[in-house]
Structures are given as C-alpha cells and as structure tokens.
C-alpha cells in the first residue's frame, strides 16, 4: 500500500532555491542538508515599515511561530526589509512556503525561502551602505524601501545639477 507515484507527488513549492549563503560556515553539502531540514524561513521584499506583529499575524496562519527576527540595517539598526521566521515544526514552515510565499504582506508580494538557521549577526544587511545588497544596486524607486537604490541615490544629485 506504500505505492506512491513520483509523478503525482510533486511538491515543488517546498524545494530549496538556488540561493546559498556565502557566509555560511560549512560546505555546500552541509548547507543543503540544513536547508532541507530547516524550520526557519528567510522572508524578503518587506517594506521597511512592516512590523513584527504583521509578520506574526500572517505567518501564524501556517502554525505556531517560534520566533521572528527582523532584519536590520547594520549601521542604522533600523528595519531594512527582510526577516527570519522560525516555526516549531518543519511541517508548518513547509505550509508557509506553499501558501504564504508569493502573496502580499503590507501590500507587497513577499518571498520566502529556506534558511539554514539563524545565527547572531545574520540579522544585519550585508550591503555596503548597511542595508540589503539588493538595495545597493537597484535602479527603481521604491518608497517603502528608502526610495532609490543607494548607488542610484549617489548618481541622482549629479543629474539634478545638470538640469539647472
């Protein structure tokens, strides 16, 4: 009766992604092993104003949340648009990957991905300016994430001068 059909047991929303943490202490294999057993999710594309309470409310729909760690700008120590959500069980985290990933929180489509586990220091952005790397180089204007990307902000004053 254990006859399961591989062709029918697709559960692709819980697959691990291509992302690997470059700062992870250990080799690729070890990281992947942890990702496949993890109860912790990385959550990205948050607004800088999204609160722990809002994250808790949404992610509690998949099970009891053990803890939430809001990602911080390394210099300013303010929220910089990501967080970690840790569940008590793997099963609950899988449901979040299936049903919360790609839906909206605070009007923004958020993205969840497996995380190998929170370690002190991982709550800080790794961009040069203190926030997330993605906010260093992006060219778009996102009012919920500090406006223009950091590089673009530096370029912009030059443009303004030239128009005068």
């Amino acid at each position, binding site marked *: *009766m254990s*006859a*399961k*059909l*591989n*062709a*029918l047991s*697709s*559960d*692709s*929303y*819980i*697959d691990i992604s291509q992302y690997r943490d470059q700062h992870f202490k250990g080799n690729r294999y070890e990281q992947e092993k942890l990702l496949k057993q993890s109860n912790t999710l990385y959550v990205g594309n948050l607004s800088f104003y999204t*609160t*722990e*309470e*809002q994250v*808790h*409310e*949404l992610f509690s*729909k*998949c099970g*009891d949340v053990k*803890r*939430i*760690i*809001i990602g911080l700008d390394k210099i300013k120590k303010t929220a910089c648009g990501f967080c970690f959500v840790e569940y008590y069980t793997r099963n609950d985290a899988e*449901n979040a990957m*299936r*049903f*919360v990933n790609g*839906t*909206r*929180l*605070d*009007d923004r489509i958020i993205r969840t991905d497996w995380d190998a586990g929170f370690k002190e220091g991982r709550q800080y952005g790794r961009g040069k300016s203190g926030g997330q790397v993605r906010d260093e180089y992006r060219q778009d204007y996102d009012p919920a994430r500090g406006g223009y990307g950091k590089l673009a902000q530096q370029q912009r004053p030059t443009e303004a001068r030239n128009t005068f």
Partner: protein
Amino acid sequence: MKMKREEGGGNRARAGTVSVEVGFLSLGQPHKRRRTSEPIEIEDRLESLICRVGEKSTSSLESNLEGLAGVLEADLPNYKNKILRILCSVARLLPEKLTVYTTLVGLLNARNYNFGGEFVEAMIRQLKETLKNNLYNEAVYLVRFLSDLVNCHVIAAPSMVAMFENFVSVTQEEDVPQVRSDWFVYVVLSCLPWVGKELYEKKDVEMDRLLSQIEGYLKRRVKTHVPMLQVWSAEKPHPQEEYLDCLWAQIQKLKKDRWQERHILRPYIAFDSVLCEALQHNLPPFTPPGHMPDAHYPMPRVVFRMFDYTDAPEGPVMPGSHSVERFVIEENLHCIIKTHWKERKTCAAQLLSYPGKSKIPLNYHIVEVIFGQLFQLPVPPHIDVMYTTLLIELCKLQPGSLPQVLAQATEMLYMRLDTMNTSCIDRLINWFAHHLSNFQFRWSWDDWADCLTVDREMPKPKFVKEVLEKSMRLSYHQRIVDIVPPTFSALIPSEPVFVYKYADESAVSLPGYTVSITVQNAIKNKASNEEILSILKEVSNPNQEDDDDETESFNPLKIDVFLQTLLHMAAKSFSHSFSALGKFHEILKALTDTDEGKLHILKVVYDVWKNHPQMIAVLVDKMIRTQIVDCAAVANWLFSQNMAHEFTRLYIWEILHSTIRKMNKHVQKIQKELEEAKDKLEKQQHKRRDSGDEDMERTSEDEEAQLEEQIERLQEKVESAQSEQKNLFLVIFQRFIMLLTEHLVRCETGSVDVSTPWYRNCIDRLQQIFLMHHQTIQQYMGTLENLLFTAELDPHILAVYQQFCALQL
C-alpha cells in the same frame, strides 16, 4: 464515433524500451525546477506516460489512449508488474480521471485477456489492503473504478452486482457502528452514476432489490449528528442535507430519468467496437471485512450548497441539487483539490480546465466546493490558508469572471450570517480579512450598512468588527480608519495601545505607585533579580492585615506593580516583551507560585493590553511555554467574571484553542519520547541476546537498567501530562455547563426566550470544543458521561454532547 486503429497517434514501442512520440509524452511538470540531469528510470517513464496521458497533446484523448495502450502492450512481457502497480495506483490516486484509466485498462484487456484478469486481481488485493488500513475514502475510488470497468467490458456486470449485494448486506449486521454500514451503502450508491445504466440493463431485478434494501436502511438510520455538521441552521434557501440523503435523492432522480447520465466523460464509448469484442472477467466473490474495534470509518457529513440555478445570471445553467451531474461535478472538483492542494498554481489550472466546463457554470461550482471545504465541520480537509491562496490563484487566472463570483459569494455569506455556525463564521472572518489584505482592502462596505442598525452583538456587526480587527493586524490602525466609511467608525477596532496604571502623576495616589518608579529604575540599571525582589517586598498586600506569611501568600498588588511596569517598558514590540518575560522569568515564577497568582498575572496582562488582543495572545502563549502559567489557569481566566464582557470575541477562543493544542502536543511529545525509549530498550535487549560476549553483556545490562529507569520516569511524566490534559477538558466543560445552565435557568424563570445572541454563540463554542478536539476527547468519553453530561443536565446542553457521540455511532 468509431476509432480506427490506424488513426492512433504515436508509434508502437519496441519491447524493452519505452520510447514514445512527443505527442503524448510530456515529462514537463508545470512547476518542477530544473535539477541536474539524472537517469530516468524506466519506472519513472512509465509512471509519467500513464499519469500524463492526454495532457499537453495536440491529438485527441482517444488517440493518446490508443497509442499508450499500444506502448504498454508491447512492454507487458518485461514490465508487467510495474505497469500493474502504476495502474492500480492511479485508480486510487487520480479518481478525477477515472474514466480515462478504465478506458486504458479496457483497451489493454481487449489486447491481452490475461493482463486484464491480473489487473482485476491486483485491484481486489489492493481493495482488501486499503480497507484493512482504514483508508475508506480511497477504497471508494477503487470500487468505483471496478464498477466503471463494467462499462469497458473488463468486468462482467452480474459479478459487480454480486459485490454490491455483499456490500449492502452489511446493513443487516447487528451491533456495528452506523458509520460502518453507512460506508458500504455510500460506495454502492456513489458508483451508480457511472455504472447504473449498464447494471440495470443486465440485472434490473437484482438492482431493484438492492435499492429497496438501501431505502429501508436509510429510513431507519439515526441522524442525530446532522445539526452539529450543518453550516447554516436554516433550511432556506438551501437545505444542508445529510450526505446519504442527498445522494439517495440524486440516484432516485437518475433512476427516474432511466439512468441517462450525460455529464461524465466516457472515452470508452469511442472504442465500443473494440471493447465489446473483449472477454470479460468475473469479480471474485468479495466478502466485506468484518468490523474491527480499531476501525475508523469516515465521519458522516452534510452537503454544502450555497448556489443554485438562479445565481449564475448568464451562461450555462447550474445542475439542480438533486441531479446526479451535481454529485459528479462536486466529486471531481473535490478530487482535484485532494490531488493538487500542495501546488496552488497547478490546482487552480486543473480546476479551471475541468472537462465539460463549457456546459456548466464552472466558476460557481469551484467557489462552492472551495467554501464547502473551508466551512466543513468538524474541520476542513486542508489547512485554512490553502483555500485563501487557491482562491487568489483562481482570481489571477480568471480575472474577468472569478472575482465577481467570489464577491457575489461573499455577499451571500454575509446575508446569511444570522444562521451560520459560529465556527464557520470564524473561518469566514479569517478568510475575508486575509483575502482583502491581498487586494488593498477594497470592498464596498456601504453595501453592508444594515449591520449598523442592529445590536452590536448580532452576527452581522460582530462579523464586520472582527474582520476589521483581523485586517488591522495585517496592516495598521490608520489604514482601517481610511478604508471604511465614517458611518462604520463604531466598528473600527481600538488603537492597540498599552494601558499603564502608573502612567502619569495622576496615578500618584495609587498604591504601589512609588514602588513602580523604583522598579522601573532598577530594571533600567540592570539590577539583579534578588534586588528587584527585595524592592517588591515593600509592596503591601491589600489582602492582608499584618505582614507575617508575607512571602507565602498571594499579593496581587506586587504582581500589578512589577508586571505592569515591566510590560510597559517592553511594550514596543513582541520581541521586546518576550525578552522581558525571559529575563525576569525567575521573578515571575516566584510571583505566580499559587493558582491565584497565575490567574492574577493573566488579569494584569489583559488590563494593560486590552486594546491589543494579538499581544495578549502571544504573551499568554509565551507564558504557557515558559511555565509561568499552566493551561488550566488560562482556561479558568477566560471563563472568569472579569472576562465575561469579552466572552464572545474571537480572540478569546483563539487563545483557548491554542492552549488546548499546546496541551495536546505536550502529551504527544512525551508519549513519543516514551515509545522511543521503549524501542531503544528492545533493540538493546536484542543486541545483548545476540552478542554472546560477556563483557558486552555486562555493559549492555547497565545501559538497559538506565533505559528502564528512564522509561519509568517517562511513564510517570506521560501519566501526569494525561492527567493534566483530562483536567483541562473537565475544567472547560464544567465552566460551559455552569454558564449555560445559569442562562437557561434565568430565561426560564423570567419566561424569556433562551436564544439570545450570547447563548447561540456560547452553545456553538461548546460544540466547537468537541469538534476541534474530537480525537483527544474520545479518550475521556467515559468520564464526561459519568461526571458531566449526565441525564440531569438541561436538554439544550445535553443535545450537544449527544450529537457529538452520534458522529461515531
């Protein structure tokens, strides 16, 4: 339409290889990420071919089936067992494509009689296994598959009728749970849409006798359980019918229509000329397995209906509630969700590509089936949030039509709130708020202005209020103010601000004020726990005259001063508050040593955070997990007089159910630890016996002694946890009984109607305890019946208990 052999697509594979034309080989799964290439086993290929037959193909389904039959026939010499296994599995796991696979089996049987026979045997073996393993829902699909094989000339009709006769004879058994005979009757009836016509053509006398027996059984069935499972208590506009009654009415109507059924997709019709040449097999006589005490038959259910033909304004007409088409459509949609629920995009796509969709108002059926699952009692088949996300996907795929149907459905559900079961209203609240949060909270609130004209405790304004509260949790207070018309301001939740007793100088006169300042400073200066405890010694006990016994007895003011101050300092966020509870855990444990202490700490949490129910819930959760309070204390607090005015609010029940779940998980965890220790001991003992080495035996004996000691400790822990769990349920039920009895007596003496909004809410909440935790409660039925739910109880309250018992009769 006759199917000519030469028209079949695809090539005939060579024996030993599985190479098939791209036309009907589609290995691409919509969502599979690309992995590094692996050798695909023959088995995987066969599986893929069979599971995906007809998908993504430009040829017709019939053409694909013909081709696949050719491929499989050629592979039978080498891969017969694999093919048998796969076909048996799809029969069980892909019931929504039943007729596709019965056709395939029919074609194979026509080409290879022995294979057909072996397949039937394998199916019977699988059916026996499935029943033995309590997989009754899957067993239904297997029997249905067998019955459709009659249409494909694989199984002889008389032998199918004989199997049905054996099933129906279960209704003659005595002293068996009703749900057992229910199942056997359900299986037979649910096959008839597919095979009724054929069976009646061959064996009408026997079939009439069968139906007559079923009718007799249905008449004598006890239906005490029905009110507990109905989503609405009202009969109008759609009665919530018991599932067997509804199916019986549908089969009656089908019979009256002379078994003409036009909805089911039947690919085998195209192959009739080939199939009718095939030799049929007889089903071996099948005796239903006897009733075993550990059997878990499916629970009875109620058919959820919210739409009828008047609701779909244009386009195809919705089949009537007693039409067999309605049954088949609903079955198939339920099966699609069961197969694909983990992958919402695929699930939505499969639902929307339902074969035959052009003849039915498919969007309405889909929405109805989804809400039917979401509102199913006791619990939905899948996690609630899945339905929210699935509906969003469906809206994305059909942006021009589905959102309107969903809005229409929401409107209808709102209009019928007055008679909706409270558990279902809870789910509706959570769904609607979450759904809105994905669509900028856009809603025509003015359409619901009628809710402002009635008492705030009535279902409609209560619903709106709770939706706004949940919506605020997913956004923020000002957002809610902005999205509703000013007329709705009374229903807007309060701003989630802390209420600090010692906030400003006006609090100077309050006892404990000066100590609160001292404590605050001590915390800021990182004083030790001992220092803080000695500061708190200064707080006089309002309950006492003199100071001896100070350290022993419960001092509510001390708790007030410390906890109010601490939580005020940590009010910024959940993390701040959790950190505070953790840092001062020792002090909090000391302060809540007694039951009164535990109750009071909960009272203080409420007092300071009454505007922020979400914070109350997370703090209570943390305090249980860190053992500052226990589960019974939380239950007693929720039922206390202090909380009576909050009793009908949703967050109260979320806290209570969360508390019960934590208790249940705790018991399960220790039970698991005990089992694991026992297994470990057994393994160790085997190892010792098999080793024969003297030294090893000695160390092993030591280890075993340790394990035995551990097992003894765990055994005690399990017993203690189970006792705590039983006590929790007793406390909860006792409190319910007290509250409800009080109300009923008061109404009786005052000659007032008992059915106030409060009462209806309370009785639904009692019911909800039974439904949400039925598996755990089953163990305590004896105690419940002897101690609490005795014959002396008011019939209103006893009815809830009796309906619950009837679920497993």
